[in-house]
């Protein structure tokens, strides 16, 4: 692990000095994960590609500000997620977000256990604007509802209700597939 960290630190240092090969190496290492974050947040390929580009450009242009090179991954992820939030905030229409979503009691089953993670990924992409971003931030980026409310400019109760709406929609979309294909 230490050796890996040392390699990463060396590559980040070189990238910070403008070494194009080192920058490309970092892109190859982290690009895929960041791209999938952008895809799940934006819901479409064109926006995801733009957001990925913006994130990496911003990161490389400010790489000299990163004090601990071994934390590059987390730092880059924060930049990318923030870019996504900024982008999504412009598209979410708060009026359309209902605070009173009926909650489904899922305690009796872990319906997702037998569903492929790739299927879940594609289903998240297809969620409607608003609840998709809330779901991603709460579940995958580990934001609290308060943080989501502040980031997306909505109330905490809206964030919570949109999260439950997203779960409900995912369940409605994925369970029939499971039953159909076994």
């Amino acid at each position, binding site marked *: 692990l230490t050796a890996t960290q040392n390699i990463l630190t060396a590559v980040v240092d070189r990238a910070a000095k403008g070494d194009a090969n080192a920058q490309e190496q970092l892109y190859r290492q982290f*690009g895929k994960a960041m791209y*999938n974050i952008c895809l799940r947040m934006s819901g479409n390929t064109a926006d*995801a*590609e733009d957001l990925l580009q913006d994130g990496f450009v911003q990161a490389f242009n400010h790489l000299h500000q990163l004090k601990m090179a071994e934390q590059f991954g987390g730092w880059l992820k924060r930049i990318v997620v923030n870019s996504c939030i900024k982008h999504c905030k*412009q598209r979410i229409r708060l009026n359309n977000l209902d605070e009173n979503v009926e909650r489904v009691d899922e305690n009796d089953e872990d319906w997702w256990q037998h569903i492929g*993670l790739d299927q879940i*990924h594609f289903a998240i992409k297809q969620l409607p604007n608003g609840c998709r971003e809330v779901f991603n931030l709460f579940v995958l980026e580990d934001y609290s509802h308060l943080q989501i409310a502040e980031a997306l400019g909505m109330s905490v109760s809206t964030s919570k209700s949109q999260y439950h709406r997203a779960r409900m929609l995912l369940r409605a979309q994925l369970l029939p597939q499971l039953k159909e294909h076994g």
Partner: protein
Amino acid sequence: MDRLKKHLQDHLPEMDVELPQSDLWQGIQQRIAPAQPSKGMLLPMKMMRWVAAASVLTVVGLASFLLTQKRDGASVVQMNLPVEQLPLTKEVVPQKTNETLVVVTPKTETPKPTKKVLPQPNKQKLMQNFVANQPKKKTSIKVVDSAQILRTNLANVEWKKVSNDFELILVAQKQRINRTPLLVEDPSYFDSFKLALQQLENDEKKLKKEMANGTEMNDQMLDQLIQINQQKLNLLKQLQAEINRMNERNKLKPKSENNTTSFVNI
């Protein structure tokens, strides 16, 4: 933590199933700011700095010299005139006759002998003539900071040049976008680009207004102006790329009767 959240967080890497397009890196590379100088570049950069510093010193020195010369030429006359006889502007040039010699002689009680000493009555008469020919208007002395003028002029030339150069490129790019036919997609799809461009143009107007209002031009303002124009250019390039991408996609789709050609008017 709810169970779904835990399940997905535990298997997060397995959800990263899609790959970005292979040419995306080229786009990023083009947009990354120029790298910091490597060791091999240190010497030329140092030399460049010295050359730049020397050029600035030469320009400032030359300008100061010219301004001082001009001011001295006018001040020779001014020094010897009573306050109410001071000329209105700097354009007053001493006459190239013998009379001038009398005028520029220092006005002391014991004048130093000059090479051409005129008889005393003539001197008095000439002085009277000169005084009679001067405008009678009383004026106040306007103190002009030549260095400030020079600085402002250089800065104005610089930002106008930056602005004009960018404008040419931006207009060319806008024309190219306006000429590109748009297949299927509604032009309103690109409204966000237009909005962003409008915001940048508003920022630029505001900045130029500040400059025109006489706010002293500084490096920061010039940087801002360059940055705004670069952002505008990037935005237009992105718009062009987006249109091209959409067009490419639509070419692959089977043609339907609803396909219409329109243009983005930007």
